[in-house]
């Protein structure tokens, strides 16, 4: 799942259907009923409540519109885009394409209940999920008797609004103000462990361009220069079969992420483990020792490098043997890079970064030495990467 970054601060939300569909077989009462059911999908697992209003300001305005309707994201008629919604910080409203043939309890047309339940996930602060079984997957699944949240959806909504309590403790606020929207952006200067101890086990960028840091039993997702909302998370929750305290990881140009620990390695496509793993390093990476310190694809030549203690190995999967006899070579060849590093990363900006003991170095590929920048390297990763003060 993915959290957009904003959420409602109150749990008693109001909504209004300001423009009903102009065609199709559904009456206004039908639409009211289906919209209510769609919102109930989210109340089943949280303390959120939704109250329909017929007039006045509401949290979530719902309307059926066609073509260009004033928000710069026009609808396209039947099929294609069915609807869209705005995250809490942008108002939370939901728009539905009035040119769709909206239906209820039928395999014909486009099922309003399922579409609306998905859109209201956005209104509450959720982005799309790459879990195909999740309600927040972006593609329309067709008529389902009773749309419901799967585990991925439940984790997402409860990350924002907490679990459903046994009694209704929610208090209601009648006025809407900007104070009702907040960013569920943890104050990174005070909260997460990387601010106290910025040493890491591994860092890599997955196929979907998400950059992850692994430390102990947890992992973090990085955004810009801090940690993404909702993190850290337990490795065991999201990376099926992967142990804690990994050694190193990298993503190869085939889109696969290779994660190493001890004598074994695992292979993932984003967070989905490929079958048949783990495998021995000796089988898949002939010539590479166990328990490596770091693994990365060097931006200079696109080949895979492994670092261990004071040595490094170059692995070329297209050559036989993949590691030449001239390896290992001393890390001191990488001018300015220390021995026993924690991990290294070719970042999305094209530079290669090396991490050790909470510090990092940026490498100048052309000069083949640590970048001569101001401030100089090493720099503290806690400030420059993890959003700490």
């Amino acid at each position, binding site marked *: 799942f993915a959290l957009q970054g904003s959420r409602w601060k109150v749990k008693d939300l109001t909504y209004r259907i300001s423009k009903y569909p102009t065609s199709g077989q559904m009456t206004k009462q039908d639409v009211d009923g289906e919209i209510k059911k769609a919102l109930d999908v989210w109340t089943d697992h949280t303390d959120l409540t939704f109250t329909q209003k017929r007039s006045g300001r509401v949290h979530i305005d719902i309307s059926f519109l066609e073509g260009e309707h004033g928000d710069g994201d026009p609808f396209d008629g039947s*099929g*294609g885009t069915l*609807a869209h*919604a705005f995250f809490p910080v*942008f108002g939370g409203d939901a728009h539905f394409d009035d040119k769709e043939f909206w239906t209820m309890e039928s395999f014909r047309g486009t099922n309003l209940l399922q579409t609306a339940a998905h859109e209201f996930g956005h209104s509450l602060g959720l982005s*799309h999920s790459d879990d195909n079984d999740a309600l927040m997957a*972006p*593609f329309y699944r067709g008529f389902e008797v009773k749309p419901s949240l799967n585990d991925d959806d439940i984790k997402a909504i409860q990350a924002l609004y907490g679990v459903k309590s046994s009694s209704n403790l929610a208090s209601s606020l009648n006025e809407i103000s900007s104070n009702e929207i907040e960013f569920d952006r943890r104050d990174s200067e005070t909260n997460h462990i990387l601010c106290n101890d910025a040493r890491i086990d591994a860092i890599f960028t997955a196929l979907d*361009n998400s950059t992850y840091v692994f430390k102990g039993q947890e992992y973090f997702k990085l955004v810009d*220069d801090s940690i993404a909302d909702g993190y850290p998370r337990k490795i065991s929750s999201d990376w099926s079969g992967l142990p804690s305290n990994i050694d190193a990881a990298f993503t190869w140009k085939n889109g696969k992420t290779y994660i190493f620990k001890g004598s074994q390695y695992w292979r993932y496509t984003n967070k989905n483990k490929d079958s048949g793993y783990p495998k021995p390093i000796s089988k898949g990476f002939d010539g590479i020792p166990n328990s490596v310190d770091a693994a990365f694809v060097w931006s200079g030549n696109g080949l895979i490098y492994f670092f261990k203690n004071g040595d490094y190995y170059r692995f070329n999967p297209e050559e036989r043997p993949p590691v030449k006899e001239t390896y290992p070579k001393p890390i001191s060849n990488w001018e300015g890079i220390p021995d026993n590093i924690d991990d290294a990363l070719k970042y999305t900006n094209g530079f290669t970064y090396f991490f050790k003991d909470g510090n990092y170095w940026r490498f100048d590929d052309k000069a083949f030495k640590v970048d001569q920048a101001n401030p100089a390297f090493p720099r503290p990763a806690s400030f420059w990467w993890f959003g700490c003060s």
Partner: protein
Amino acid sequence: MPIPHVKENSLTSAMMYLMKYGYMDDMDHHHHRSENLLSQDGLKKYIMEFQAFAGMNVTGELDSDTVKMMNMPRCGVKDKLGMKMDADSHQVHHHSRSKR
């Protein structure tokens, strides 16, 4: 019947789709000329990201299955929100710290 928006063998329509749903938001406009993008190789990375997100075989090819998936009815919100929020958001940035 709905008109398919992404056509077989049409890299342009595929690129429009990938742009619309946020897969190309990280594109470095200084280093990618449009003619480079409009090739199978130019879009390969973005097609792979879409295929991975959609739970498909990750080939990087605009094959018929990929086109079919791109023409599936769907939500209009981007799949990839990118690393930055819109300029008029209320998110606080630490301006003294430049991006990596």
